[in-house]
């Protein structure tokens, strides 16, 4: 069963939080929704969980008891222990006794949290708390996992652990959608949706997104058009609408996801300025 959000438009008061955004999540795959603060990532994920009303569009998601949702905020109860958090959530989903205990212990072990079962959630490190939130969302073996910024602020080593858990869930057949502000995570997912100001910037597999990019990018120490250039280390990358626009002495490089997302954001801002 493929889960979808089709042409979703969401408005909060005067703010258009999502504008005609579509998303498709296949079982056994990871989709990354990437963007900055205010891009609409959380709103989009909340449409899947049924927490947000659409002005237009349709959502096709499983019933709530088949969704595992990890919100961007804690996701666990600070004054309960790791084990109590798991048992509490298990109880909500009707798990009890040895079925709950064995599922709980297996998930805690996979998340390397088995040594901290008796610790209060408030005493866990940021990375551990995110892993606990993930284990809680996974407890009832959901068909759809919705993870809101699971890796924000956690260190690279914990991030690798978390990605292993996410990949294990998808490899076992779950449909996984996660939001992130990191472009390297979007590259790692099977497909991605880049959002900016509630609108779609790019979507598809990494290959689709790079392949659909029409412009050319050069690397240079002295950009010709500063407003279309940005830093990559000490050098600049500069955008040109077509290969024909390239200066004679410049050589186009193979753009990566960061080049494409920065350029599309610049073009969008440029269009908006022209329109106003």
């Amino acid at each position, binding site marked *: 069963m493929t889960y979808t959000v089709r042409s979703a438009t969401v408005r909060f008061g005067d703010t258009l939080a999502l504008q005609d955004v579509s998303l498709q999540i296949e079982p*056994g795959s*990871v989709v990354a929704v990437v*963007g*900055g*603060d*205010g*891009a609409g990532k959380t709103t989009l994920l909340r449409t899947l969980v049924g927490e947000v009303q659409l002005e237009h569009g349709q959502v096709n998601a499983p019933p709530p008891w088949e969704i595992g949702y990890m919100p961007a905020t804690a996701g666990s109860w600070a004054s309960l222990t790791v084990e109590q958090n798991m048992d509490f959530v298990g109880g909500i989903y009707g798990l009890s006794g040895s079925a709950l205990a064995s599922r709980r212990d297996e998930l805690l072990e996979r998340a390397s949290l088995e040594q901290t079962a008796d610790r209060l959630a408030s005493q866990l*490190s*940021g*990375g551990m708390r995110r892993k606990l939130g993930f284990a809680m969302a996974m407890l009832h073996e959901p068909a759809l996992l919705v993870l809101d910024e699971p890796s*924000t*602020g*956690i*260190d*690279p*080593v*914990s*991030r*690798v652990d978390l*990605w*292993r858990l*996410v*990949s*294990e869930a*998808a*490899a*076992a*057949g779950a449909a996984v959608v996660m939001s992130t*502000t*990191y*472009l*390297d995570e979007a*590259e*790692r*997912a*099977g497909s991605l949706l880049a959002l*900016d100001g509630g609108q779609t910037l790019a979507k598809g*597999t*990494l*290959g689709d997104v790079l392949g659909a990019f029409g412009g050319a990018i050069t690397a240079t120490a002295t950009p010709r058009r500063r407003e279309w250039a*940005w*830093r*990559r*280390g*000490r050098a600049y990358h500069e955008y040109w609408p077509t290969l024909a626009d390239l200066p004679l002495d410049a050589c186009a490089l193979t753009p990566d996801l*960061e080049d494409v*997302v*920065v350029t599309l*954001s*610049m073009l969008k*801002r440029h269009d908006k300025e022209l329109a106003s």
Partner: protein
Amino acid sequence: MTQPGASEDRPRVLLAANRVSRKFGAFTAVDDVTLRVEAGEVVGLLGANGAGKTTLIRMLLGLLATSEGEVELFGSSPDREGRRRLGYTPQGLGLYRDLTVRENLAFSAQAYEVAVPELPEALRPVADRLIAELPLGLQRQLAFLSALAHSPEVLVMDEPTSGVDALARAALWDTIHEQAEKGVGVLVSTHNMAEAEQCDRLLLMSRARLVAQGSQADIIGSTTAVSVRTNDWARAFAVLNEAGQPVMLAGRDVRVADADPEQVRRVLSDGRVRADVSGIPATIEERMMVLSRASEEL
């Protein structure tokens, strides 16, 4: 004998730690760390949480005494005078959320006894809005402006572009590189590999120690990873994960950090997975994983 002008050619060290350690009771938070930040360079500090980065930065700023070793800020031990010549943006931004943009700037300018900086175009329309109401990208821009108002010679920044979109991050890094080109020494602590890529030099901490330093290419060195191209990533992932290989999802393929292609091939063929296996250069993240695992085994 020193040649006249020779000192001009020598890089000017603005911030240095010489065999610095810090203990809290029996716990060693920072163990024998030596580093320097020169005028005009951007140095990135990477490491897991708990690796000792924050303790190290607090000692560099003179906010925490060392247990052993010396810290030098502008050639002497860090004091109030030194700190006046330094700009710092904490991860929490250090802005007053219930003050307006204009009030925040006035407050920090007064603390450093400098003129209130002019607002850049992006911040002008929100000059009288409370910080709490602003998007994160604008908050970060304001934090930069406040930290730079007194023309510091050293900038210390903790996750300076965390949470913002790619374009806002590019704009903030423009500012950081401009400062470096003016001769400011910059130390950036980060978890974001895109930020690490922006730095001239990286310092990698694990378990209280500095385990690697140099350019990104130096640190990755000859470390390789294994790329596994397959029609069935899920099965390849499951088989390699089961065999205890540090396997990662990579789009529709998988990668294994710090592995031998032959062994990966064997595990896959035992698990009856058809795949195209090849050795590729590791990423900085994979190198970090390898180094931190090695330091845990010590």
